[in-house]
């Protein structure tokens, strides 16, 4: 899979490149509007991550070009502008998603996977890990042939962790993923804790308890070999 990242902030760019490469993607990058423009004119990408404030132009224009000329490319805007208008503009131009800085890399990762799944029209919309099967369309989880009764939030947490398998996913990133802006600080962590506890209990009952690991004080990790 080929990913283009257009971001002028060098350090943030390096971070994303490192993260994406570890995920097994082939990555290219551009740091100015012109560079980005050249890249999308000359090559094809499965996914483009574009910052809005670029030297030499507005990232929205790049999204617009991509939408018209390469409609199969998944596009994600990353921006520090986070007014409702900016979001609406971005999505109207045709971006598939909009992330506000500062974002969590695990969130970016999960969103890319979600969009790609949608875009590529994969026949089976399932995540399979040994005896655990997550069906994203039906929103159901089957563990050792037993369908689990999960709440909406439990299901969302499981999918989020599974999409970031073998990585530490922080509590605040889960909080943001589940509630967006409304929730803040410590007491949403209690809630995540309670949910993961219930989720794990349900998995353990069906001998799938080894998938969720707690990283003390930080978050959780979905283990899969």
């Amino acid at each position: 899979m080929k990913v283009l990242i257009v971001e002028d902030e060098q350090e943030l760019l390096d971070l994303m490149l490192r993260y994406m490469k570890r995920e097994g993607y082939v990555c290219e990058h551009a740091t100015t509007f012109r560079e980005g423009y050249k890249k999308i004119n000359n090559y094809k990408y499965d996914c483009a991550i574009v910052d809005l404030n670029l030297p030499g132009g507005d990232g929205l224009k790049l999204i617009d070009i991509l939408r018209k000329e390469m409609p199969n490319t998944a596009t994600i805007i990353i921006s520090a502008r986070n007014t409702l208008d900016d979001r609406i503009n971005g999505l109207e131009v045709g971006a598939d998603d909009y992330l506000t800085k500062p974002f969590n890399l695990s969130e970016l990762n999960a969103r890319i996977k979600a969009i790609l799944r949608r875009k590529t029209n994969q026949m089976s919309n399932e995540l399979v890990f040994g005896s655990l099967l997550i069906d994203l369309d039906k929103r159901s989880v089957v563990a050792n042939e037993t369908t689990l009764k999960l709440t909406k939030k439990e299901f969302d947490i499981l999918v989020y962790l599974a999409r970031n398998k073998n990585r530490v996913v922080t509590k605040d990133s889960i909080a943001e993923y589940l509630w967006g802006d409304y929730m803040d600080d410590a007491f949403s962590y209690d809630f995540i804790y309670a949910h993961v506890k219930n989720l794990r209990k349900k998995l353990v009952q069906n001998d799938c308890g080894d998938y969720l690991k707690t990283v003390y004080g930080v978050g959780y990790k979905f283990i899969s070999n």
Partner: protein
Amino acid sequence: MNKINGFYIAITATAIFAGLGMARYFFPQQFFTVALISLIPLSILGIGFRIITNRRIQGVQNQLIQIIGTLEEFDVDEPKKVIFEKSTYQLFNELNESILELIERIRSNYQANRQFTQNASHELQTPLAIIKGHVEILLNSPHLKEKEITSLGVILQNTNRLAKLNHALILLSKIENNRYSDVETVIIQRVISEMLGNFKDLINLQEIKVTEDFGEELTVEMSETLAEILFANLFQNAIRYNVEDGFIRIQIKERTVTISNSGEVLEVAPESLFKRFKRESTVEESLGLGLSIIQRICDLYDIKITYLHQHGLHQLILVFP
């Protein structure tokens, strides 16, 4: 106006009496005839004088009213150009010119202020994102010891606090800069239900009982976004400072909304609660900006807000105009 009129009457009267006095001295016999004769033109002169000055004063007054009207219409947010009609008085033209200059200065300061808020948010968000990203990458490096993971957790937690603090400060300055001028008719009951829905998980988790007494529909002219932020913050506090198995009561009566909740007794004086950064020390990690945000929004729309602590429960009373 009256003073000026009085002044002219006094002058006219003095002139008449002076004329009379002199006439009496030179022609004592014909005094009354002369008095009568001199009185007529003098009073005509006086009345004429009054009419003319009255007109001029009226004109000056009208022009002043026009200027005040133009100034009242002025909105720093609107790019509309301020135009004064040309006056027949040089003084007014000069006044108008200096007002225009002042307006220009206010506008450019306002713009600069706005720009700063935006830039500040942009400039702060990126480094915060970089710190967070690096911690995330470090957390995923192999062979980390538990101690190292704990340290990284602390760094991450505090970076998040900074990011949220930044977010709240930007919101405050946006409200202060009147960035939410999209006033519409908001139904308070609907906003409350929606916000309670967002907190449903947390309310259930802490086993808090919520009772609603919604009364007649309460509509308010305000920005819907700010109405949402207002009640989100109010409920967040009502949940955060609550106790396990506690309760929240929401009562709407005419234009008064009362939110009562169970909770521990405050250690801080209630008045100081609304200042920036004040917070109850027993609850960890609250940012203390929530109440300032509430206060700002209430100030903006003339909503009277009072805090009461009686019979062991916390009460916030909002009276909408």
